[in-house]
């Protein structure tokens, strides 16, 4: 069964990630009173990009983007997607926290070799934004790990299945709210779309990407979305017993995230960090204090 999941979960992540990409465009179009592209438009784009003849700036330019995508797939292997996670005993949530940063880091290394200042600015913003949302995010994750006394995602899911899901239980409700507040930042959508700001810094880290590079970066973006949402579902919404329910739960969270995306304009990066360090951090901090003092 586990072997099967090894193949299934990356595929599921890929499919759902791309679906989310398409859905997000459709969703936005509908909110803006447009028809919007078909749901499979990202597939067409990726196919088109794959067959375009791009330029390469060096070996690291290729390797970085590959590393980024591969590490995103590895993170997926740590997630129980309505079943057991394929890599459940390899470092748990702590390893996930680290692996999640490999995605941006791969893009950053690759983009760095492109020698384009737009890329550098984008990366600089990405890292700053990450510092911004990591503060509440770490507090949330630590509150969860401390509360359930484990660092394994699977056990956190299992523990929620026994009692109520985390977002519905007393001290952890703060963590849940804080997570929802930082979700757009983690997904990289408006109002936190400072990294790939198309009109301002020519889509930032992806400025030099064309052809297959762009295709891989697009897939990676989809996976990032998938990971951010599935983390919420697993850690705070009790996971799911089968993939279908899991997918439905993800869909709800996704809808929230993109409603925010459509409803708000973009912030500057300092404004974003200032926001992230104010309300979400405060709420997450309250949650952490409650967990540390009251406990389970």
């Amino acid at each position, binding site marked *: 069964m586990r072997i099967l999941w090894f193949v299934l979960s990356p595929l599921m992540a890929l499919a759902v990630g791309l679906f989310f990409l398409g859905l997000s465009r459709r969703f936005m179009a509908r909110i803006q009173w447009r028809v919007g592209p078909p749901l499979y438009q990202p597939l067409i784009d990726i196919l088109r990009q794959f067959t375009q003849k791009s330029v390469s700036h060096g070996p690291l330019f290729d390797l970085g983007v590959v590393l980024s995508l591969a590490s995103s797939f590895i993170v997926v292997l740590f997630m129980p997607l309505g079943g057991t996670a394929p890599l459940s*005993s390899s470092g748990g949530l702590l390893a996930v926290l*680290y692996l999640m940063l490999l995605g941006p880091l791969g893009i950053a290394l690759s983009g760095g070799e492109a020698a384009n200042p737009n890329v550098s600015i984008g990366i600089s913003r990405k890292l700053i934004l990450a510092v911004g949302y990591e503060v509440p995010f770490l507090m949330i994750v630590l509150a969860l790990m401390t509360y359930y006394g484990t660092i394994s995602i699977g056990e956190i899911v299992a523990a929620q299945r026994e009692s109520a899901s985390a977002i519905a239980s007393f001290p952890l409700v703060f963590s849940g709210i804080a997570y929802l507040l930082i979700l757009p930042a983690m997904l990289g959508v408006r109002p936190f779309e400072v990294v790939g700001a198309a009109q301002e810094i020519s889509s930032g880290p992806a400025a030099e990407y064309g052809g297959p590079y762009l295709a891989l970066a697009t897939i990676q973006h989809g996976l990032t979305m998938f990971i951010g949402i599935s983390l919420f579902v697993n850690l705070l919404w009790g996971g799911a017993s089968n993939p279908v329910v899991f997918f439905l739960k993800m869909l709800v969270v996704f809808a929230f995230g993109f409603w925010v995306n459509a409803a708000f304009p973009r912030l500057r990066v300092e404004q974003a960090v200032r926001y992230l360090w104010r309300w979400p951090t405060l709420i997450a901090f309250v949650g952490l204090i409650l967990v540390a003092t009251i406990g389970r």
Partner: protein
Amino acid sequence: MSLGLLLIVAFGGSLLTYLLGKVSARTRDAFAVLISLALVVMVASLYGKAFRVPFYGGFLGMPLVLRIDGLSWLFAIAASVLGCLSVVFSLGYMKGKERTSFYYSMLLLVIAAMLGVVLSGDLLSLFIFWEIMSWSTFLLISYNGGPALAAGMKYFVMSFVGSLAMLAGVLTLHGSFGTLEFTGVAAGMSSASPGYVLAILVLFGVAFGTKNAIWPFHAWLPPAHSEAPSPFSAVLSGILIKMGVYGFLLLMFVIVGLRTFLSLGVGRIEFHTVLSIIGAITILLPTFIAIFQNDAKRLLAWSTVAQAGYIILGISFGTSLSVAGGMFHFLNHAVFKALLFMVVGAVEYRTNGVRDLDSLGGLIKRMPVTFIVAVIGVCGLIGVPLTNGFVSKWLIYKTLILERSPFLAFAALFGTWGTILYSYKFLHNIFLGQLPQRYEDMERAPFTMLLPMTILSVVVVLFGVLPGIPLAVIDTIGVSFGFESLHVTPWGIASDTGALNTVNMLVAALVGLVVVWCVFRSGARSVSVGQADSYAAGAAVPRDKYQYSVRFYAPLRRMMAPYLKDFVDSFYMRLAGWVRGLGDGLRRIYTGYVGDYVMYILVFLAVLIFVQIAWSPW
């Protein structure tokens, strides 16, 4: 293998190196490498041994003893290996500089003194070697002149304060127990009063904390590390400051003892918790100061302070996992930080001493191997899975979380995100981005530089993939301290509450990379272009101007810089100013007018007699 012989080779080698330098530079270089290699071999042959040998009858009635056990072996092997690599690295780096004989001799002396420190079997010889280490380090830090002078001075004064505190501690112990050998002192300590133990811990803690640069004793480290010659910075950051860690481990778990240490405190404030909190502060503050540094070595220096915080946090938290994590992190930090300093050294060597992050860039095209090892080193520093830093940090985080200390864990984890910021800045500003025109004909780093860097980077990955190798050694040490054994497997830790298995990750990573690579290659082939063909909104790329590295984190800087003043350092500097002012004021007592002087004499006499007649106090 006798320990005395080891030290004789080490110290004698240092002296002979200097003398040989007067004969021939080539012979001296070869000899220095040979000696440092011999030390590695000799230390390695001591693996698993545990014995003591008295080597000096009685220094003022205090016998000096050497000993070896697992703990000292671990530090000794790290010191000798890093020393050896640093000597090899110096061969290229020091070529054509002046006073090289002095440099090599002092480098070997520092290594010898470090070996002496870790092999000491009693506190007095520990102190003697400690002092030799301090002054030889001072000479090497000052070696470059210019700003290095102030750095050396700061180092010396702070380290001297520390070692004098340690002297007071050593002599207090001698006064109480009449012996300075570790076993004897440990036996005495077990029945000592908590207040006494605490006082001793504080006295020694100042010394070890200063060497290990924990907040607030860190002020000497950034200038010293950045101004010293780069191969020596590697030793300094890699192993020398870890002598403080050795001291802490020795003090806490060998001399004071685990149980006493954990229960020590004033009222409800436990000593080890306070130390852990200091460790957490030491992680956070320097990490964020490092982000805004523009000097590559100063950035690494601040990072060293921060990483030392992890080590202190680990060992002072006092669970078997955390102490193992702390010790492992010491080893890892020694490896990757030495590697990174060597990287800067190689860059400095090829760019004639430029280490300003704002004026470098694009060197990946000219120094690809150096870049690869730099990436590996940085990954270790961040703690990317499958590098050594991940395992040690993982151990520390895990125990912090499971022991319900989420705030300490937060400091540690958040510090890691800061680490990513400055690490990426380090890589980006040196190696990525546009290659300036003036470096277009730069050569690769010479072989003598690449060799040590490659060895270290292999170790980073090896310890990351098979952490069981060092952890087995560390586990034995932990057991000898009285901790329960970790269940070490070659690829990690077996445990009920979240295991670690690096092989799984390795396989997943390899498969993932191969699959994605295949998919990537199945797309259209791309054309290789140079850095001039980059998107510039339709314009041609302007030479030497198309770069974004100055003030890399400007928005964050605007937000945080006001809160990131190193107020401890400014306090010390102000203190030094006050002392000088005081001296200047006191100097005015000596007016130069002999009438005043005669008056002093007579007044003194008069006061003496008056006081005696009036109150007869004597």
